[in-house]
């Protein structure tokens, strides 16, 4: 992909860092609190007079608020540029689009790299363990601060989809519609297992320094890169890897050593190496932990449908990808079953693609059509022009 300016860039209408005063702490599921709370965010388009066109887009594990504008670190287009822009499913000419950096993140929202006002040093491991519900609570504070009572839609893929479901469970009265793409209502044993590999890789790096690497003036780049490499495999399907790389070699012949002989090795090394430039290792620990702790059904007495009984007026759209083995289709079906069980109106489609989990931010015409169809219908129901 070329690093040209995303077409939504001209529609960026605001953002920055919202700083809540210390007397407005973010209460956490763990019992702790974050104060003062800072949330980095961006907006695209304008809020209409009736305040009915606001859309919150929630990002995945390593995403951020740079939804559709050039990323300040990588210089690449925002992570969902293909789906946000004039004439696209999320259209800044019609929608007021908000994206935030989750708490625990490393692009401006309060996280483990934030300076602890008590010590004058980065929080590191003193940062409290957070949950998906905590992320959503922080977003709700921002939405309220922006003067928005009801979101036209909350939209997210992967971890963003989990946030969307959490929104429906916790703030159904503030939602008109909810789109959950390639996600699940809980983390499976396999999901947790892969995350644990990543965390162990980070913590095994001597430069991690027990989490206090910023104070030591180093970064656990090797560990974080390995974590990213392992995770990246889970984002791709076997078929996509095979098609992209097969057994192709980097150079003519084998090296008879441990250089990156195969193209797939070189690709993964590149993924790992470029990731460390834009991501903080402790943020990776905290956010993967939040994902592992996520179990929306368990939050509601073990019955997922109970999570959605307050959301009967919310229109849901749940989408999965046929080749996603990280959050496979049966996970989305469980969500749909629970929604139906709760008496919610839900749409569900399994999008046929061999691109794996990452399909949600790739050029996927079926996703584009489905998303557009759903949002268009909701816009009519909501009276948006």
């Amino acid at each position, binding site marked *: 992909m070329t690093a040209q300016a995303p077409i939504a860039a001209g529609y960026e209408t605001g953002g920055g860092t919202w700083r809540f005063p210390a007397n407005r702490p973010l209460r956490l599921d763990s019992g702790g609190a974050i104060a003062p709370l800072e949330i980095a965010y961006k907006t695209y388009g304008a809020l209409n007079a009736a305040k009915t066109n606001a859309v919150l887009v929630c990002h995945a594990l390593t995403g951020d608020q740079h939804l559709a504008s050039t990323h300040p670190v990588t210089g690449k287009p925002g992570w969902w540029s293909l789906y946000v822009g004039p004439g696209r499913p999320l259209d800044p000419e019609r929608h007021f689009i908000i994206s935030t950096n989750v708490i625990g993140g490393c692009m401006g929202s309060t996280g483990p790299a934030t300076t602890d006002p008590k010590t004058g040093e980065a929080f590191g491991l003193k940062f409290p363990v957070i949950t998906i519900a905590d992320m959503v609570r922080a977003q709700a504070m921002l939405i309220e601060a922006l003067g928005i009572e009801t979101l036209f839609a909350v939209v997210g893929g992967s971890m963003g989809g989990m946030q969307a479901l959490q929104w429906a469970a916790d703030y159904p009265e503030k939602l008109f519609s909810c789109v959950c793409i390639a996600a699940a209502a809980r983390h499976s044993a396999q999901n947790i297992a892969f995350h644990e590999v990543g965390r162990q890789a980070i913590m095994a790096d001597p430069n991690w320094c027990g989490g206090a690497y910023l104070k030591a003036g180093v970064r656990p780049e090797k560990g974080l890169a390995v974590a990213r490499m392992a995770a990246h495999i889970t984002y791709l399907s076997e078929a996509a890897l095979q098609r992209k790389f097969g057994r192709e070699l980097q150079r003519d012949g084998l090296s008879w050593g441990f250089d990156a002989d195969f193209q797939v090795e070189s690709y993964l090394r590149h993924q790992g190496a470029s990731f460390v430039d834009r991501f903080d290792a402790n943020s990776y620990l905290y956010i993967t932990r939040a994902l592992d702790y996520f179990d929306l059904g368990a939050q509601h007495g073990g019955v997922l449908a109970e999570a959605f009984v307050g959301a009967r007026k919310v229109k849901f759209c749940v989408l999965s990808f046929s080749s996603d083995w990280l959050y496979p289709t049966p996970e989305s079906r469980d969500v749909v079953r629970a929604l*139906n*069980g709760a*008496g919610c*109106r839900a749409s569900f489609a399994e999008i046929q693609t061999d691109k794996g989990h990452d399909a949600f931010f790739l050029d996927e015409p079926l996703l584009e059509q489905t998303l557009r*169809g759903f949002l*268009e*219908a909701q816009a*009519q129901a909501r009276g948006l022009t």
Partner: protein
Amino acid sequence: MSAIREDFAEILKLVRPNARVLDIGCEDGELLELLTREKGVDGQGLEISNEGVAACLARGLAVVQGDGDRDLDHFPTRAFDYAILSKTLQQMREPRHVLSELLRIADQAVVSVPNFGHWKVRWALLSQGRMPETGALPEPWWSTPNIHLCTLRDFVFLCDELELRIDACASLAEGKEARPIDPRRAIENWRAETALFLLSRKAEPQPAAAPVNLFGEAERPAGDAPVRRKRR
């Protein structure tokens, strides 16, 4: 606007305004859209094909990609006023289970089935000794999706067995207006090409038994296995 399909026109007459409707095998959502527009129903579709689901979404309908054979179990008891199954019961693997599920999920079911007792079918079998190909059943035996065909009489017997009440019945034929019939009359089992039924329960439904196995899949209730019955 093009003419409304004859079965749709009849369903439109049967459904109360503002009802909650589940359309199983809703295809591109034409019926649901019609019911939404004309009767203000709160509709939900179930459709297996990608094209159908995409078309429904584009129409603004709530649609779940799924299979009437597998995905009815998770709908709560009496979640809908009507469950509609148009011309697809004979394509189900477990039509008996599906029929009882329809009337667990909804207070009334609208079901249409092609009648294998129609005179054209009987004549084709009698005169040629080959599987009939008729207007209602156009495909050859080796490619037909209709794997569980029944006659009008068979269907009435099944309703009796499942303790379902037939609230209304109409005979349908392509391009002709629906004709109200008494499905228990022997002559209708010769005359009706397709029959549309409005069914309800004689007794209160049992709540959904939804045991979940190790893989998180709801297991089928025990009554689901094919049951051999003495033919009457």
